């Protein structure tokens, strides 16, 4: 059970209030129609599965309903930082 800081509510809340939305920083192609099958396939299906730092999207589903980013260590489950949509992570290496 994680304890997650919501950057919008400004406090830690229990994991029960949140949902994970998978890998962060995947941008929808600006012009999908001109994507090759491979480019489109990469956007839709391919995700990282790192051992270590992972940037992922969470939503404060039972709280403020805002989406935000979390940098989480997939081995220790430590949450290294949270940051709002549109921002870049500060923690990028162990």
């Amino acid at each position: 059970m994680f304890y997650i800081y919501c950057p919008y509510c400004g406090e830690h809340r229990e994991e029960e209030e949140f949902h994970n939305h998978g890998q962060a920083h995947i941008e929808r192609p600006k012009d999908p129609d001109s994507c090759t099958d491979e480019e489109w396939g990469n956007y839709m299906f391919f995700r990282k599965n790192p051992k270590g730092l992972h940037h992922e999207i969470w939503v404060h589903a039972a709280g403020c309903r805002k989406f935000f980013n979390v940098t989480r260590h997939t081995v220790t489950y430590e949450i290294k930082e949270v940051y709002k949509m549109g921002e870049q992570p500060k923690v990028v290496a162990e």
Partner: protein
Amino acid sequence: MSQKNRLQSGGRIDRSKPLTFTYNGKQYEGFAGDTLASALLANGVDLIGRSFKYSRPRGIVAAGAEEPNAIMQLGATEATQVPNVRATQQELFSGLVSSATNGWPSVENDVMGLVGKIGGKMMPPGFYYKTFMYPQSMWETYETFIRKAAGLGRSPKEYDPDIYDKVNQHADVVVVGAGPAGLLAAQTAARGGARVIIADEQNEFGGSLLSSKESVDGKAAHAWVASVVKELEANENVIVLPRSTVNGYHDHNFLTIHERLTDHIADRAPNGQVRQRYHRVRAKWVVLATGAHERPLVYGNNDVPGCMVANAVSTYINRYGVVPGNELVLMTTNDNAYRTAIDWHDAGRKVQAIVDTRKNPTGALVEAARERGITVIAGSAVIDVQGSKRVTGVSVAPISEDGSKVTGSVKKLSADTVASSGGWSPVIHLSCHTGSKPVWNEEVLGFLPGKTVQKQLTAGAINGTFNTAGALEEGKKAGLEALEKLGLSAVEVAVPATTEQKESKPMALFHVPHTKPTSQAPKQFVDYQNDVTAAGIELACREGFESIEHVKRYTAMGFGTDQGKLGNINGMAVAAKVLNQSIPETGTTIFRPNYTPITFGAIAGRDCKDLFDPERYSAMHKWHLEHGAKFEDVGQWKRPWYFPKAGESMQQALDRECLATRESIGILDASTLGKIDIQGKDAREFLGRVYSNAWAKLPVGKCRYGLMLKEDGMVFDDGVTSCLAENHFLMTTTSGGAATVLNWLEFYHQTEWPELEVYFTSVTDHWATMTISGPNSRKLLEELTDADVSKDSFKFMDWKPMTVAGVPARVFRISFTGELSFEINVQANYGMHVWEKLFEHGEKYDLTPYGTETMHILRAEKGFIIAGQDTDGSVHPYDLGMGWAVSMNKPFSFIGKRGMQREDCVRAERKQMVGIKTIDPNIVLPEGAQGVFDPTAPIPMPMVGHISSSYWSACLGRSIALGFVKGGLDKMGEKVYYPLVDGRIVEAEICSPIFLDPKGERQNV
């Protein structure tokens, strides 16, 4: 039987309060303050079960959570049965009913005992894999026999009458364990102003001090404990939890605590009290002061009743006033255990000898023993014991200095009790729960908590600090450190003085050598509960299981309900010796939650019966109940399924509801549909991106059906969205999909298109929605509104605000039945009023309530899909024949557009949704039936698609079905066959999915 082993005085029991209890059908007496184990020992009960595999007689070994043998079935009634209770942790109460878990048909006389005699050969490690693998069909028979013979307790067959509870806690500091270290940590943190929870599994705080003769702070240890507890209890920021086991330590300092509130009072909780409470605790800092368990030594026949852990013997004497035997032999590798011989001697019973494995034991405790005239046999070990149901004697032999072999002749001593001590193992279980790898410490001769990412501190014996003074010091230090990390100021706490004796160095010995090789020596048990012997571990290693995790799984070491608390380190030492490597090289297995077994009651809490899962009700729910509705679960909603009249079968009710709707008028409670209020100047643009069809030109006052796709082009939801005003839309979703769709919209808005000015708010619960459908629906509506709802001024797919039955409403002329149909939305507080008014006025039209099943039939007659039933995440709009709901020319590449153009999505012969008519109109195909083109093809026949919806249509007088067929849209009129489970092959014809009114004339009247 009298309490023959009870001392006249001493201990923390109350001799003025005798308690009667039952064990294996026989009555005994104990005292308030006893555990079930101490009471049994007081009564001279040696046998408490038969072992799991070999069915050997077993007795009580320990005095706490680590007990492997005394696992009891408790409960005076069927409903209050509790399996797998450790007698050493169960407090005695009057009327307690217990029985041995293991041992069939009886503990005293066991038919499996015979098997046990030859069991050494019959059940080696890996036994299950090797013996019972073949023939596989016999496995169930084997398992039943073994389980019945061994027994692992049984669950009650009746409803548990007690109340269980869960509580969410938050604390600055959680202190686990209330021995000297924990108490001082809690005292320090609490004085510093922290919110503290201190929990201990025992009924009394004090830990090791409870069975100690030491004094602390110049007074009896328990008096000092009482003074600290009093201080803690008086502090409103401290939660004091006795009888509370911290069972799990999870990520981000989340702990679970199992508190037993009435298990010590009676068989079931008195006066409706909560029996057990499960605390879910989020801690800023955790102080583990969990202490240590004494390791027994591994020697021949060390499982014969009377073989005990040394400190447990002291505990029974000092805490419970029970001496569990007459003649004691103590075997020890350290000074500490000398106390047991001294306690035994001081209790007035005979100590035959102290067998010390060290060459030259010295030190204050050794001297104290010698002063009492106790014989100390140095440099020797008890290599095996005699006796079957109780120890009758021991074999003592000199051993080499490294403990690897017997070096001299064997001498026999008589004894009925063997206490052994191989030193102490820190209780590191909780620290392991979070994934921290324990680290071997050569000084401590044990594993210590390893590196952790948790905000975790440790104090006392868990660190290998086995003396009270050191534990107190570390407790204070942990308390101060927690305060500092919390940003609270330090406080003065005096560390009380203690009166312990200094101890000399212990010897590293785990497995006592024998004159015979391990494989031929009498069984040397490592894990009592799973009957794992030193020979078994050696065999496993020789058979190639070199990783300790594999050894564990092959031998089942540590898999019992005790998780190998006593045996694991010894087992690793045995494996290390065979593998010729050190213990740290061998490594350790990882402890996982729960520390001790926990009841299902505590896990369930009050989430059972009516509260098991929320039931969501519409505003008209009470009406449905009163009118005999049968309900269907749709998500958490309870929706009327159908409304049977007296004596009607389900099909009769459905036929009546369908015909009434087609011929006159039916009404459906549609309140559960998801409804989302969408506002903003970019609302229209947003809709165009998330729906497959066009929204740019939908005029105000109009409604439109839309399909929502995932990026892969597959349909995931559908519904009607209405243009309320230029920048204002009301979207409807499926009942089950409401939350998912809102989340979907928010996800795209917040993460992809934040520049679009649009807001979404759920109004699902705000509106009560009722749909009247059928040729008479306009007449009924006209009676209840002043608005003009005529054909020309209120057209199909229009919506209008109007007053219905005196209540402001939004009415949508949309249809899911194909009939003239009006969906009336009023604020939910008026839902019941309008619903009842409709019935008042609808009586003359035989207004008929219908539920989800009739809704499904009516829509299937029209070929309308149900997202989630006719779609399964692999179906795009063209597969559904719904290309009309896709607008490929929209400027923005809507969600799903690119996905639909993938090679696989545009290939020929995709499975497409069509209508299916059985040739025999009376056969209703089962949903899920798989179709084939050639029923004579050899099995496995090539399958061409499944039936997704199938009903009896009363309106058409025949069965109808929707289903998928490869290339089906181009195969109208062709045959498809459905081989069924019962052997029938049903012949059917592919047809249009629109079975009724293909021109849509009925809804356009």
